[in-house]
């Protein structure tokens, strides 16, 4: 317990948002509650009068709600997937980032799934799915996958939080009941640490296939139909790439905001933004590659139904959305992130905001244009979201920020114990790993074989690598 308290003292900045509440918190809370109220009112209005108050119609029966659903589920990949990959690859720079990413996952998954309930019009029909659901439908695959992913994400968020909750339990007697319960008697013994680390490692491995499956199955909802621009074999991986892309962007936006509000510059350094910016650049290129492949294949096939939707997007009523998406998801991020001078905190924020907007538009132009051009001999449909749908959307985004704000008020948004672990064991591990990566020097080979060490090589200015690496303790000091 003493150790945990000492950790808390050293990283007091991480506990400050929980222990101190400024006026900014209440102002933000009020604004977000107002947004949520707009959403709730809009939904109640829709519940009272039915889906007729939305812009949904025949043949465009999916609109902004399904767009939100796909967008939010996509963003959920920020967290668990990125956090798990960085954890498994032992990327030491992950330590201040993982918790923020994992929280995003849990929040947006719940909100994304909620959008499907809103789209149902009559939420009581959910019981039909529970009682009479048929696994013939990809929608039910989706329900199963999302439930699994949400549960796994909550467990994956909670387990690494336990040592930090114990710090709060020891510091905040007023909330002892909450923290005492959630801390599960954590005292930081060697055995407890072993249990925790083992569980986190297993969860990191488990959660990656589940995360990939979720967005693949979301893509299957579209691609298993025979609709133009939906029926595509690469839709699964295309959606997964888009999900990681938008998830990274959302994570970067959250990092910049939290860094600014909670003064976390000491933890979220330029280098974190630089590394994530490079990762985002790779995803930008990957996204463009998949988009190009998807549209080129349709264009080359030149089937009338495909081409109708194709031109609808390229030069028709959806052209403004399509070209804005290209600018937001490729032109601007590529221009900013490919240049190391603009790959700064501000630069990555601008690129990420553009990507988030662009990816929402991408989901929109996947859903709506195809339904607007039915294969059956009906005239093309049109869709324009109403104020009710916009109100619900505002409510969803406000709810996400509200959940995030409340989480940051109750729990440390950066993992304190993982930072502390990085200071000691992480440094040692990196040191050891570097020694393993580099070719053995003559000294080390001779030490291994038991032979006496030879004289130093007589090349004076070459051997940075032949010098022994500094001990981690020296680096700390």
């Amino acid at each position, binding site marked *: 317990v*003493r*150790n945990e*308290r*000492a950790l*808390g*003292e050293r990283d*007091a900045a991480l*506990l*400050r948002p929980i*222990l101190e509440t400024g006026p900014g918190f209440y102002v933000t809370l009020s604004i977000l509650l107002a947004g949520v109220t707009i959403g709730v009112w809009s939904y109640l209005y829709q519940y009272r009068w039915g889906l007729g108050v939305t812009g949904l119609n025949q043949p465009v029966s999916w609109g902004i709600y399904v767009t939100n659903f796909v967008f939010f589920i996509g963003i959920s990949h920020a967290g668990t997937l990125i956090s798990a990959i960085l954890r498994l690859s032992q990327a030491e720079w992950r330590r201040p980032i993982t918790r923020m990413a994992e929280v995003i996952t849990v929040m947006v998954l719940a909100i994304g799934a909620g959008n499907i309930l809103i789209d149902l019009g009559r939420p009581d029909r959910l019981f039909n799915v*529970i009682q*009479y*659901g*048929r*696994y*013939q439908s990809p929608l039910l*695959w989706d329900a*199963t*996958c999302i*439930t*699994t992913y949400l*549960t*796994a994400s909550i*467990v994956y968020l909670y*387990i690494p939080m*336990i040592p930090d909750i114990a710090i709060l339990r*020891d*510091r*905040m*007697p007023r909330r*002892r*009941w909450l923290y*005492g*319960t*959630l801390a*599960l*008697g*954590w*005292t*930081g*013994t*060697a*055995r*407890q640490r072993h*249990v*925790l680390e*083992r*569980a986190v490692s*297993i*969860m990191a491995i*488990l959660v990656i296939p*589940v995360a990939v*499956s979720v967005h693949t199955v979301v893509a299957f909802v579209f691609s298993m139909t025979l609709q133009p621009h939906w029926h595509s074999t690469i839709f699964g991986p295309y959606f997964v790439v888009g999900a990681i892309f938008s998830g990274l962007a959302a994570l970067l936006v959250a990092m910049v905001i939290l860094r600014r509000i909670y003064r976390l510059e000491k933890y979220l350094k330029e280098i974190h933004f630089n590394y994530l910016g490079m990762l985002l650049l790779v995803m930008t290129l990957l996204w463009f590659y998949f988009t190009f492949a998807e549209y080129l294949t349709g264009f080359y096939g030149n089937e009338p139904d495909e081409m109708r939707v194709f031109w609808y997007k390229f030069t028709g009523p959806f052209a403004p959305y399509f070209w804005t998406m290209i600018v937001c998801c490729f032109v601007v991020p590529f221009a900013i992130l490919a240049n190391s001078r603009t790959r700064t905190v501000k630069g990555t924020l601008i690129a990420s905001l553009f990507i988030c907007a662009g990816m929402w538009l991408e989901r929109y132009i996947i859903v709506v244009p195809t339904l607007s051009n039915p294969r059956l001999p009906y005239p093309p449909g049109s869709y324009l979201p109403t104020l009710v749908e916009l109100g619900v959307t505002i409510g969803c985004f406000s709810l996400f920020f509200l959940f995030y704000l409340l989480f940051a008020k109750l729990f440390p948004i950066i993992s304190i114990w993982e930072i502390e672990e990085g*200071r*000691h*064991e992480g*440094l040692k591990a990196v040191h050891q790993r570097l020694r393993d990566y580099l070719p053995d020097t003559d000294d080390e080979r001779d030490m291994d074989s038991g032979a006496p060490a030879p004289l130093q090589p007589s090349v004076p200015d070459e051997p940075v690598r032949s010098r022994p690496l500094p001990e*981690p*303790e020296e680096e*700390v000091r």
Partner: protein
Amino acid sequence: MNRPVDFPHPFREPRIHWAQFGMLILFCLYAAGIVYWIVHLIRLSFELDDTSSLSVAISAVAVPMFIALVAIVNYVFWGLLLNQNEVQPEPDQGERPT
């Protein structure tokens, strides 16, 4: 900044003790409910001869996943609660005296 406060250890408080057990039971019931739902849908698909192979395939992934989650949560729960009284390890060498 609040200073650390000394108070009775939470695990010795029966209310917290029971709340922790309640949390575990709730999670296990939730997981059991999901597994039951999936099994119910498989049974239904067999009864109606309706894509039973697909139902079995999906449940073959989802059900073990929930069982694994229950196992991990139980492992952490019991692993932490039963090992809180071990002798504290010495502080790391890297930790400087304050």
